[in-house]
């Protein structure tokens, strides 16, 4: 009787309690993300300071250096005549206004340059991450279920191979094979010369062409996307395969999987509902890490495919030692990564009732 009343009360109270628990969880995650963002600006500032010699010379193009007015404006904007903490505040203030500095190469604000390049990168990263997660999960589960057998060994060696291949080299090989030898892929770029970009809506050519009803342009865009997406997916898929394999192996040892089989459920249900569901939280985490590595990969892949995305911009900036641009990319990517991580942490709440309801 006592037990009954205790349980009854706890069920009634639960809805109120869990809402505040979820709120607390969300707030905590938000605070961590905000701290990391602030921290990343410190890193950025430290790197600006680390430049040996005169920061004016390091951050302005030769043309601007010849112009005393430009030099003075630069000094004033970054507070270079004031003490270090004030300089950081000036830097932070500029960042808050979206001012990442001016690119030496293009002479434009770095943020404007970046935003121009973002849609092209999204057009690669989005399909690549989806492909990697699907392939990585499927292959990883397969290997786990065949642990120790030939299929598993083949997957493990294949995954190691994928992890050990330099992406930029794979890009060159892929272009050589599919463009130069087989002629089935275009030679980099986003569109063939005979097409002009579709009217801009999202900035992603394939999507915009579809929206404008230009099917031939959309198909051409997809053909240009295919090869870089494949190359980007290799490393990420390999990472995910290894991770999913060990996560699923761990779940396979759990009693609740034995219990699911003992209930007479079809193997397919056990795999897709019980096994995958249990590994889901870990797979989500890993996907966010993979996302970061994929963003980094675009730096090495886009340049080979002449793909005008953030990665290519970073590459061009690095080659030209365009410091404000490189630092801008660095902060931008870190910010994206932190935000994605935040999103993933919040997704946890949905995937795992222990977080959602505790």
């Amino acid at each position, binding site marked *: 009787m006592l037990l009954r009343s205790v349980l009854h009360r706890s069920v009634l109270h639960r809805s109120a309690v869990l809402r505040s628990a979820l709120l607390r969880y969300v707030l905590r995650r938000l605070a961590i993300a905000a701290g990391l963002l602030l921290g990343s600006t410190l*890193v950025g500032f430290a*790197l600006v300071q680390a*430049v*040996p010699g005169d920061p004016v010379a390091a951050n302005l193009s030769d043309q601007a250096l010849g112009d005393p007015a430009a030099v003075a404006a630069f000094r004033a904007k970054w507070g270079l005549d004031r003490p270090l903490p004030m300089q950081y505040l000036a830097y932070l203030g500029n960042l808050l206004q979206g001012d990442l500095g001016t690119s030496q190469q293009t002479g434009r604000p770095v943020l404007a340059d970046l935003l121009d390049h973002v849609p092209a990168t999204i057009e690669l990263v989005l399909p690549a991450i989806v492909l990697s997660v699907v392939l990585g999960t499927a292959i990883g589960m397969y290997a786990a279920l065949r642990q120790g057998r030939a299929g598993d*060994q083949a997957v493990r060696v294949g995954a190691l191979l994928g*992890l050990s291949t330099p992406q*930029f080299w794979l890009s*060159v*090989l892929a272009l*050589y094979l599919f463009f130069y030898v087989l002629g089935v892929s275009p030679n980099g770029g986003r569109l063939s010369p005979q097409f002009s970009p579709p009217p801009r809506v999202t900035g992603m050519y394939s999507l915009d062409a579809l929206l404008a009803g230009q099917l031939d342009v959309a198909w051409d865009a997809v053909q240009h996307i295919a090869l870089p997406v494949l190359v980007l997916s290799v490393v990420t898929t390999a990472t995910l395969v290894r991770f999913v394999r060990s996560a699923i192996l761990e779940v396979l040892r759990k009693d609740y999987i034995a219990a699911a089989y003992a209930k007479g459920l079809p193997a397919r249900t056990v795999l897709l509902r019980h096994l995958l569901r249990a590994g889901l939280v870990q797979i989500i985490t890993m996907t966010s890490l993979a996302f970061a590595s994929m963003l980094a990969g675009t730096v090495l892949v886009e340049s080979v495919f002449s793909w005008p995305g953030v990665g290519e911009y970073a590459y061009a900036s690095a080659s030209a030692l365009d410091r404000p641009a490189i630092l801008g990319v660095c902060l931008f990517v870190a910010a994206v990564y932190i935000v994605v991580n935040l999103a993933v942490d919040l997704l946890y709440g949905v995937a795992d009732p222990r977080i959602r309801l505790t």
Partner: protein
Amino acid sequence: MRRPLVLIALSVLGAWLLLAVLAGVVSPYDPLAQSADTYAPPSAAHWFGTDELGRDVLSRVVHGARLSIPLALAVVVLALLLGGLLGLIAGYVGRAVDEVIMRLTDLVFAFPQIILAMAVTAAFGPSPANAVLALVIVSWPVYARVIRGAVLGIRGENYLGIARMLGVGPITVLRRDVVPNSVGPAVVLATLELGNAVLLLAGLSFLGLGPRPPAAEWGAMIALGAADISKWWVSVFPGLAILTVVLACNILGDAIRDRFDVGHR
């Protein structure tokens, strides 16, 4: 993983080390010597062909081992020292110091390694030394976390407490208990990270932020090959060099991890 694979990996690494040492003796040409015979495909005279300046690709790949392997080793050793030291301090001192160091590792983890390394090299100027410095800056946190974990584990076992009660100074405790007990995990981690260091270094060079031309560096050689993909041999062979070294490191790392069960990030 199975034993034969580990043996193969060990022999591959051994062979590369040997090639690096004997590069001057075994390579048929001077890696920097240009000739009129540009973009010659692989032949009996030039097994791996020649590049756009008529330099022998085989000789350059062999000499590349002299650059890539020592530089990657330097990255791993220096990152291990820096990360190990910070991890020791974090685990031993604890509290605020621990908190600051751990938040710092979080911060570095928030940046993709190659991109942060790019920014660091760009800030200091491109050179082999700065590339190594950049890679140390982006890779020390892994070591710091593992070493800190090892120190905390030892503290949990409480032999530090007992040593302290016996009136031994902190330096002695570090030297006698903490350091010897954290060496194992650190070395395992270093093996795992060596392949990663080779890849990152090649990536930086590919971007033009590592050893500058005309130096024979694998990543930089692939960048040259990417300029004209129809001359496949210019980039294929240095890429295979990177692949074999990294794959061997990863196989070894996996085997060691299976054996000692050390967590990775």
